[in-house]
């Protein structure tokens, strides 16, 4: 039974980890795009847009990601299409990521001092001009550390897609456990690989934040 060496296990896990990385990147970028669109609605002047985004955020932040994955998987299936797991996983993760990014970014936009709005108004700029030339360039800078920090949550979130049958790192761990009967080793390695993916992101988020704070002290 024990024809699996530790190296075999690790190699197979690393191969599967490629899918974790791919799904993370697609979800993060897709979530960023959807999040940016939602941000425009959230901080825009329209009442309907504000309410829509508020409800959206409440729904996706107030329910388990696992449930969102199930609903995407079985909900898309209602349209009569045979939904592959990767599609349901991508859709759910993008929508979930967007809900968190939009709140992070809104906080950054709102942290820009009121005086910046007033000064640019007094110079005759319209709302879109203020956003584009004055508010967003500043907000973007302070948004980088928390955004990088959230990417860690996305990587970890992909582990749940194993439950709807997407074969990535966590799923490979389960499969290998069943084949090798070495859960301690297998899940230890799985955890280690996740750690190697996430820790650099966490750390760079902290470093970026510290840098930003130092830069701010000069003002």
């Amino acid at each position, binding site marked *: 039974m024990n024809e699996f060496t530790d190296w075999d296990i690790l190699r197979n896990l690393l191969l599967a980890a490629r899918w974790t990385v791919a799904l993370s990147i697609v979800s993060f970028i897709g979530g960023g795009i959807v999040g940016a669109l939602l941000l425009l609605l959230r901080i825009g002047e329209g009442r309907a847009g504000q309410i829509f985004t508020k409800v959206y955020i409440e729904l996706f932040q107030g329910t388990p990601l696992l449930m969102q994955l199930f609903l995407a998987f079985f909900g898309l299936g209602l349209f009569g299409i045979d939904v592959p797991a990767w599609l349901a996983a991508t859709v759910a993760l993008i929508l979930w990521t967007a809900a968190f990014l939009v709140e992070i970014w809104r906080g950054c936009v709102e942290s820009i001092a009121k005086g910046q709005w007033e000064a640019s108004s007094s110079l005759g700029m319209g709302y879109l001009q203020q956003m584009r030339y004055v508010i967003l360039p500043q907000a973007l800078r302070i948004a980088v550390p928390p955004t990088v920090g959230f990417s860690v949550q996305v990587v970890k979130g992909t*582990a749940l897609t194993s439950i709807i049958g997407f074969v990535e790192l966590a799923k490979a761990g389960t499969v290998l456990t069943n084949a090798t009967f070495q859960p301690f080793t297998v899940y230890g390695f799985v955890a280690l690989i996740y750690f190697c993916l996430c820790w650099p992101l966490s750390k760079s988020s902290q470093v970026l934040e510290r840098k930003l704070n130092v830069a701010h002290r000069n003002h």
Partner: protein
Amino acid sequence: MNYAFDYGWLLEYWPVLLKGLAITVELTLVGGVFGVALGVACAWARALGPKWLRPIVTTYVEMIRNTPFLIQLFFIFFGLPSLGVRLGELEAANLAMIINLGAYGCEIVRAGIQATPKGQFEAGASLGMSRIQTFWYVVLIPALQRIWPALSSQIVIVMLGSAAVSQIAAEDLTFAANFIQSRTFRAFEAYFVSTAIYLALAIALRQMLRGLGWSLFPKRSGR
């Protein structure tokens, strides 16, 4: 889309959902209380504790924060028995949630401690209090008050994350939904209803924590 939604099964299966909900609530309660306690202890150790303890706590916090909850759960439930530690589903689920919240709680509480003005420590020391007494009586309560909103959000996140415990056959709300869909073949409806219950639970939990914050930290003047 020509699919007829059917919620008739609710009549028969609502007790299953209710039982699952009860387990989720119980897990959240136990995980919340002990997780916060662990977080406070670790925050103390990291910020003010003995030097040798700090790297151990730091390692624990970094390990947990940079790996998925699902894997932590699997490691505890499937992995630990090879070390001779055999836990039931609920025990493993509870333990995983406590350990998980403890790590995040540690970081959140530590931020609150670090925001404490230095004068507070000095005032405590000048009155002859020990470091631990100063921490307990002077530093901790204002620190908790400062970070209560962040801690509350984290507790809600851990509650939502608990959906994963269904994967080690702990019979929580998600487990109930899985069970119902396997019996009724009404997958979408089963998950839709349980998602709605989670949402209600998240909203209720947030309100409760806010109320708890008000009663734990009554507003004082000058704040």
